[in-house]
């Protein structure tokens, strides 16, 4: 045994060297491959537990865990119209902080409620899908279609009380304002009622306290199916499978497409690899059964867009929202 004892020494060095070399090679290979989350990810949400993007966050949390990518926690940080939550993500130097953003990130900046600029202060990572708005009346309403409904508004814009949920200047309000504008009605003359949310709009419409609601479609679809409400049109570019009898506003001759999208955002300063890494993770997440079920639960559209496309989309969306909100007198004076 002793005879051989000297032999392994040089080979040990050799092995070590080879090991080191392979390690170095390995790291460079990983760096080229892609960045991946390597510790617990914090998913930050600007609404309380149970709210719209909270549901998306918790679905994403499940997808990330199931696919073995990483464990994550959901952090609810309400305040300043989402500004506090997105501001928290924005300043992080660590890619393990992401946020779920919806239309509010735009409208709250335009109105001056939030200082966070959605176009420059955060990095859009992926577009994960959207949900359209439904214009609905009670089934005993005299208005059988959107044309009759808008005709009545042409006669007297303030003759119908329309609820747009909780968000003055948000997508629900935008949808009905754009419909009115299509027929030359000043959207400021509409009688808009604000409730604490979509659920309250539903009870008030069913109870006959208001004439119509412009509300994300998940609020109206079950009642359309049960026959208690009639959806006049949807602001998507194609019909929803859950209610195939409902036309889009576009089909009815109103050039209005308005959706509430879900975009995953990351900190302001991310490297290209980190963005690419998140894109890969989120593209898979978008195609997962859990995410598809979430989209299906609101009869939404689960289309995916990568970071660059999302950035372009947001720019366009911001400009559109700003124009409309300025006209409604809701944009911050500059």
């Amino acid at each position, binding site marked *: 045994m002793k005879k051989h004892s000297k032999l392994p020494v040089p080979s040990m060095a050799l092995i070590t060297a080879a090991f080191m070399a392979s390690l170095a090679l390995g790291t460079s290979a990983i760096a080229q491959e892609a960045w991946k989350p390597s510790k617990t990810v914090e998913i930050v949400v600007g609404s309380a*537990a149970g709210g719209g993007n909270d*549901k998306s966050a918790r679905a994403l949390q499940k997808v990330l865990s199931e696919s073995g990518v990483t464990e994550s926690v959901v952090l609810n940080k309400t305040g300043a119209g989402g500004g506090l939550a997105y501001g928290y993500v924005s300043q992080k130097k660590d890619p393990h902080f992401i946020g779920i953003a919806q239309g509010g990130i735009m409208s709250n900046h335009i109105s001056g409620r939030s200082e966070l600029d959605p176009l420059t202060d955060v990095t859009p990572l992926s577009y994960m899908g959207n949900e359209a708005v439904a214009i609905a009346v009670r089934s005993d309403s005299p208005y059988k279609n959107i044309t009759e409904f808008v005709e009545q508004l042409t006669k007297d814009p303030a003759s119908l009380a329309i609820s747009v949920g909780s968000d003055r*200047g948000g997508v629900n309000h935008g949808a009905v304002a754009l419909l009115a504008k299509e027929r030359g009605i000043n959207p400021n003359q509409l009688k808009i009622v604000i409730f604490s949310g979509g659920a309250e709009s539903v009870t008030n419409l069913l109870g006959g306290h208001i004439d119509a609601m412009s509300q994300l479609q998940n609020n109206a679809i*079950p009642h359309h199916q049960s026959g208690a409400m009639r959806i006049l049109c949807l602001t998507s570019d194609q019909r929803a499978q859950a209610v195939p009898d409902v036309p889009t506003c576009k089909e009815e001759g109103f050039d209005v497409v308005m959706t509430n999208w879900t975009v995953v955002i990351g900190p302001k300063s991310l490297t290209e690899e980190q963005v690419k890494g998140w894109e890969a993770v989120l593209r898979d997440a978008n195609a997962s059964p859990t995410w598809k079920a979430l989209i299906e*639960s609101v009869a939404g559209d689960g289309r995916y867009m990568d970071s660059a496309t999302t950035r372009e989309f947001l720019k366009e969306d911001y400009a559109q929202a700003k124009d409309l909100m300025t006209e409604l007198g809701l944009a911050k004076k500059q």
Partner: protein
Amino acid sequence: MDALLQVIDGFSISLQPHNLWYTFIGVFMGTVIGVLPGIGPSAAMALLIPFCYDLSSTSALIMMAGIYYGAQYGGAITSVLINTPGESSSVMTAIDGYQMARKGRAGAALAISAWGSFIGGTTAIIALTIFAVPLTTAALSFGPPEYFMLMLVAMTCVFSLTGSSPAKGMLSTMIGLAIATVGTDLQSGQIRYSFGVPALQEGIDFIIVVVGVFAVGEVLSALAEKFQSTGDIIKLDGKLMLTREEWKRSAKPVARGSLIGFLVGVLPGAGATIASIVSYSVEKSNAKHPEEFGKGAIEGVAGPETANNAASTGSMVPLLTLGVPGSGSTAVLLGAFIMFGIQPGPLLFQNHPDVVWGLVNSMYVGNVMLLLLNLPLIFIFVRLLYIPKGLLFPIVLVLATIGIFAINNLEFELFLCLAFGLLGFVFRKLDIPLAPMVLAVVLGSLMEQSFRQAMTISGGSLSIFLHSMVSISLAILCVTILVFTIFKTSIRGRRAPAT
């Protein structure tokens, strides 16, 4: 007949061993969460959602609902023992519950809370089983004008029960209403009184106010008492549980509380809180000795505690039949339904009878479990009173801090809570009642919003408040309470001018 079969079938689902187990986990967690001030059931349920994915939809919903109604049981415990309501619906319990504890009847106060919650909860489930669908139509007749009148009734009740000095009660209410105006105004989108602080844009969370004025304020005044050495030590006196006399006094309040709670709970909105206020004032006006209220009347604990539990079950009605959540916690429950691909609403009873009745019937079992869980726990919880204040109060402060920080993870809100603690201390020193302020914070914004919604719909005409029978009846009720209160105060003033 079909419907009856479905209900019976629901029992076979909810009595399966694994579902019994999830009912138990739910109600146990609910009790624990209800005890901790600040950490509400909605946050706890949301945290639990990721762990529910592997369960069947019925089991998961049974567990989450258990947290929801279980938390109502626990809410009374901190109200009675340390004068800190964990939720807005337990504010009324603190008034007489804490006074009972000071008289040595903490055990009885907790026992009647548990029994009241059990009876109220169970009655409400029976009512839910029978009346869910027809009641939905009644709930829909409440629009903005009707809600405003209901809030007005609740605020009138609050004002009428403020005891000796209406002026002080009014002051407390007004300060509460002022606090409720902070934040973004829903109707115009304008930000009010935020003083440039981003955290104030969403308004001041009720929990911050309640933990501040009750918990922190209590600690501060106990500290002051210690320095002036006027502090009295709370002891237990007599039988730990209810005496025959206390049972007799509680029977009617519990019966009325069940009814009031369920009916008010069916209305989406601040159901359980309003129910507890209405129940308290009904009990006070029906009592043989109304002067005992505020000084430890068991009726003042039995009624509201029964009513808030019945109401939390009642608010399952709009959730199940309309898909409309009445509160933060039912919103999370709605989210859980949707996550499992089940849409609560008009078609739920037809499409998923197994889930609905499995869930509803599990609540009977859950309430029995809660009673069996809570009665023995009283022996442990009352021991809290024997903890030296030097130890107990730091623990209260730690719990309060954790609870407040857990809401939004904002340091600012901790300072805000401390400021409300100072306000609570000042109120105590000046003998101004705390409950009207706290309740005005909860109801103020709802009241304002429904008033302005009604004004928008009517185009600015006040006549909308007299358009429906519901709002006319509520208006008459409001005036009656007001006249009754003033009349009674003046009579009492004449009889006993010294007070």
